[in-house]
């Protein structure tokens, strides 16, 4: 992977950022639903409405409003929460780490689940083991996140009392313990997607000529499978992993609701109930930018796995 490639990818991400901001702006400003009346309630006086409009720049033309929005964003100002009366930026900074921790934890669990299972299913293709693994993951894929969450919560937390029912701890270890069930909940569908893709990838690669060639070299099976089969099959799966991070963040919104975890997902749902537009806007923006950054990282990982990409 060359430095050039990194620079090109970084340059490519800037227009994406800009477009993300346009979309989010359009979403909140052009769709029906009026932030001012939400802010003041319907019995607001004209004077108060004007004052707020002035304050938010809502009486300017749309392009000017967008410029305000841009300028504020680059100053780290996403406006104030209508309900909580604090700045959206500080809210997000407070809540985001929890969500990031949960999502990363889930992503790791998903990979830990998917890779060995895919390996097993692919190498025992069309056997009973393969069938069981595929059926199991297919069911996991067909289960809504909140349902998995409720079932795990009831069984492992409420009934068996192996895990706490919610919240998170004060140390890293406690965090892991508290967030294990939510992370597992979240990991299910991602691991199903990854497992299916990786299984098919391995089946495709395992009969490749270079795998035969590696065997013909007398390499031990572990090396043939690890270095030649899995590594090559993983390239496509890494791309898929990146593409699914968005889905994972979406799932985090639901998981946080089920397990009462105070992350940005929970904040998002609360803000919808409270019609807290600045928060919704800020969160949507943050999550989209986060996803595009993950795409960037995935691309870089992929390029480091596959030399053909970076030099293309």
């Amino acid at each position, binding site marked *: 992977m060359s430095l050039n490639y990194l620079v090109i990818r970084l340059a490519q991400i800037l227009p994406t950022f800009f477009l993300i901001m346009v979309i989010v702006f359009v979403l909140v400003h052009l769709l029906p639903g009026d932030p001012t009346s939400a802010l003041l309630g319907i019995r607001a006086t004209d004077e108060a409405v004007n004052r707020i409009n002035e304050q938010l720049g809502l009486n300017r033309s749309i392009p000017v409003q967008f410029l305000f929005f841009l300028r504020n964003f680059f100053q780290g100002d996403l406006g104030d929460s209508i309900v909580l009366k604090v700045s959206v930026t500080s809210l997000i900074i407070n809540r985001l780490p929890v969500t990031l921790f949960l999502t990363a934890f889930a992503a790791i669990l998903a990979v830990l689940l998917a890779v060995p299972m895919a390996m097993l299913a692919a190498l025992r293709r069309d056997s009973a083991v393969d069938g069981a693994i595929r059926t199991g993951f297919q069911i996991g894929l067909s289960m809504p996140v909140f349902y998995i969450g409720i079932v795990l919560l009831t069984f492992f937390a409420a009934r068996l009392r192996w895990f706490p029912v919610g919240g998170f701890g004060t140390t890293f270890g406690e965090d892991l313990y508290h967030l294990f069930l939510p992370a597992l909940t979240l990991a299910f569908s991602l691991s199903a997607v990854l497992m299916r893709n990786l299984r098919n990838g391995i089946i495709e690669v395992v009969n490749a000529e270079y795998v035969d060639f590696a065997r013909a070299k007398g390499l031990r099976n572990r090396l043939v499978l690890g270095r030649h089969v899995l590594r090559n099959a993983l390239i496509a799966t890494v791309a898929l992993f990146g*593409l699914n991070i968005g889905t994972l963040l979406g*799932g985090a919104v639901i998981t946080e609701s089920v397990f009462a975890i105070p992350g940005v997902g929970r904040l998002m749902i609360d803000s919808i109930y409270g019609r807290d537009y600045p928060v919704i806007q800020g969160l949507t923006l943050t999550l989209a930018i986060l996803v595009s950054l993950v795409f960037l990282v995935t691309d870089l990982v992929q390029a480091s796995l596959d030399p053909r990409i970076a030099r293309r």
Partner: protein
Amino acid sequence: MTAAALPPGILGQRRVRRMGRGRKSLYVGIAIMLVMLVCAFVPELVAPYDPLAFDYNAIMHPPSLAHPFGTDNFGRDVLSRVIWATRIDMQIAIFCTLFPLFFGTLVGAIVGYRGGWLEAIFGRLVDLTITFPFLVIVIAIVAVLGPGLLNMYIAVSAVGWVFYAQLMRADVQVQRQSEYVAAAKVLGYGEARIIFRHLLPNAITPIIVYWMTDMALDILLGSSLGYLGLGAQPPTAEWGVIIADGKNFMSTAWWISVFPGIAIVLAGVGFSLVGDGIADIFRRRR
């Protein structure tokens, strides 16, 4: 490759056996779909009780002969609620995908056929769409428009068509170079005729396969929004809503939430089996 060194058809027997298995899962999928469709179209004939009728003499009864799925905290029959909810959830599957299916396919065909700057713009749009977590953008749109099924359909449609278009575009792009399109052009056929009569039918199978997957995903999405209170509104029987109703009673009355969950899984598996089956038949025909 060993197999490649052999004449075609050398592995024929194996293929035949596999096809048998593929067919079986397709039939299972179709059977599940049929049950779902019957429940969706004539729930009144299938459901033993009124899904909304309270029965204070049968509150939170466990599954029994009278109430195979038990009753909920208002004494409503869970089986009947699950059956009536099928109508809502199938409706979600259809209404969330109808516009994306037609509009996306059309746009994809045109973009793929014309190429050029249309393609460049579309490419950016795709990049942008996948950048927003689907659920987050749908929730954001629902937040602005207000909770409810109609607004959910609007939100999903506004984003979902891009995926159909991308799929279609990729396929048409490949076909654009094919000989039969060149032949059609030489014959002087118009653009519309080439797109509708030639390109669309040839590229429609992957679209239909994706449509199946998409419907399954939209049922998951719809029930999730129902669960969060942003989709179907209580007391409407919708699988997600029923699960939300029962979640506080999971320890004492698990049946309220568990059965609608199984229904969701069944629907999802049914759609994927049908989708895989169609894909399989298509692959073999090629």
